[in-house]
């Protein structure tokens, strides 16, 4: 049976800094700033935080938050080292911690200088999860996610006829959404032709298929359901799960490289939430690359394997479509805050506080994480009371 965390935890606070290309603040300062905003948004004070789940591959550890906030008795800390799936996987860990009473209010902070400091190829090379790739594949010429993930997209195109036009549909839609968001980096309109004219990075990925590198911080606070009821606008966590793909350390040996860890997580999270994909009103989907969105929509169960390209056509994932995706602009056009920006956006949607990008009458939404060569995570949330 599925262990159920449904209704036992809620996101009670969110906080974001300005998202920039070029910041004079340290990565730690950025996430402390975001954390303060999240704690204030919840109507709490720093001393109320007794659990910390920092980003495993980031610039700060739990001790940094204990020190800077002067916390006297943190009872739970952990990390979820799953690359871009970390932030949503941390929601599961936090929900376990508050549901069991290990702690009351868990802070999930992240901050980075992805534009101003080290870029992605050197960041992932430093991650222990990449040691197999580093030894056996990097000497031949691959380490960056664009290089490692491009063969997944290529195979999907060859097997199912997925097209660059469909990739462009994702990129153009994310850009259109970003232009509704004052805290999105990319504000210049993008057309399908612009996408096709952008320079090739790793075939089939062009520049506009790839996410941004940016500076910024984001944080959320998660509390147990009873405690959450006393906060400003708690957003209930209905279902949450993580999934690890077969051959998690190296994509090359995976039985089928077009199927992600999310395919294992999705039935668990939907089952826990007691809802189906067709019940979802808004989806914030980890978009490190355009095709990654298409593949995740399949693995989430919105369509069959191979049909994701056709699924995103015709405006379906736009704000006025049947399934609005990445209403904030995503990693592709808002900023790359490892998907914590996606979590914050979902909470806004569930509160009805998403501004010009608000999906009318949004009652059920989801947010995914994807990373670390195929790990997946998924949280399903309901409308704020």
């Amino acid at each position, binding site marked *: 049976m599925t262990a159920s965390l449904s209704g036992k935890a809620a996101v009670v606070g969110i906080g974001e800094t300005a998202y920039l290309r070029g910041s004079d603040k340290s990565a730690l300062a950025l996430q402390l700033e975001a954390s303060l905003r999240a704690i204030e948004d919840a109507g709490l004070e720093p001393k109320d935080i007794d659990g910390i789940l920092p980003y495993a591959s980031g610039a700060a550890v739990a001790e940094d938050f204990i020190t800077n906030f002067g916390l006297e008795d943190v009872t739970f800390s952990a990390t979820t080292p799953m690359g871009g799936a970390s932030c949503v996987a941390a929601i599961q860990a936090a929900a376990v911690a508050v549901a069991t009473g290990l702690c009351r209010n868990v802070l999930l902070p992240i901050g980075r200088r992805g534009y101003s400091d080290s870029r992605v190829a050197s960041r992932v090379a430093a991650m222990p999860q990449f040691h197999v790739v580093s030894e056996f594949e990097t000497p031949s010429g691959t380490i960056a996610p664009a290089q490692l993930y491009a063969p997944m997209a*290529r*195979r999907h195109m060859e097997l199912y006829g997925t097209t660059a036009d469909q990739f462009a549909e994702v990129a153009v839609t994310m850009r259109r959404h970003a232009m509704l968001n004052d805290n999105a980096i990319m504000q210049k309109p993008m057309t399908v032709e612009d996408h096709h004219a952008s320079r090739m990075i790793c*075939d089939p990925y062009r520049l506009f298929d790839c996410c941004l590198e940016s500076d910024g911080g984001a944080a959320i606070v998660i509390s147990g359901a009873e405690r959450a009821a006393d906060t400003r606008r708690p957003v209930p966590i209905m279902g949450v799960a993580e999934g690890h793909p077969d051959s998690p350390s190296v994509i090359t040996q995976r039985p089928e490289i077009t199927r992600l860890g999310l395919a294992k997580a999705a039935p668990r999270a939907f089952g826990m939430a007691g809802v189906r994909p067709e019940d979802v009103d808004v989806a914030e989907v980890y978009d490190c690359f355009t095709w990654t969105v298409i593949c995740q929509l399949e693995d989430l169960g919105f369509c069959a394997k191979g049909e994701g390209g056709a699924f995103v056509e015709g405006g379906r994932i736009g704000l006025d479509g049947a399934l609005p995706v990445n209403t904030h602009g995503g990693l592709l056009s808002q900023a790359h805050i490892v998907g914590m920006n996606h979590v914050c956006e979902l909470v806004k949607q569930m509160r009805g506080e998403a501004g010009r990008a608000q999906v009318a009458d949004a009652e059920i939404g989801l947010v995914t994480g994807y990373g670390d060569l195929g790990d997946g995570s998924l949280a399903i949330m309901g409308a704020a009371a």
Partner: protein
Amino acid sequence: MSGAATELNPARPAPEPTIDSKPYWDGLKERRLLLQQCGDCGLVRHYPRPMCADCHSLEVGWIESSRQGRLYSWTEVHHPFVPGFRGEIPYVMATVELEEGVRLQCQMLDAASAGLRLDLSVEIVFLEVQDGLVLPFAQAA
């Protein structure tokens, strides 16, 4: 495909063999593609690691690959993420499914004229890319 893959390139990242992987790297130096085979159940696995995921045996044997396989997927790399490969772009990274049932990722030689497609027949050849570092490459069979 740039022919520069064979040029001396001191900045190319070199592997750091482990106790588990040293026979693989030593085999490449002798221009042999060695694959691990479970010493108990006979399952072939790659890349080298201590345990058979099927029977959990720690007994390790090695077999020599036929070097014949099929193209499983590929990407043409245009952006030099790895500094040591700046002089080689664009190059094609091939994912090759070997006859033995495991896959190998390596650069593809003469990719422009190979007519890349799924299941293209390829063979593995060896090039010494810098002193003491012999790597597998794929080419159309």
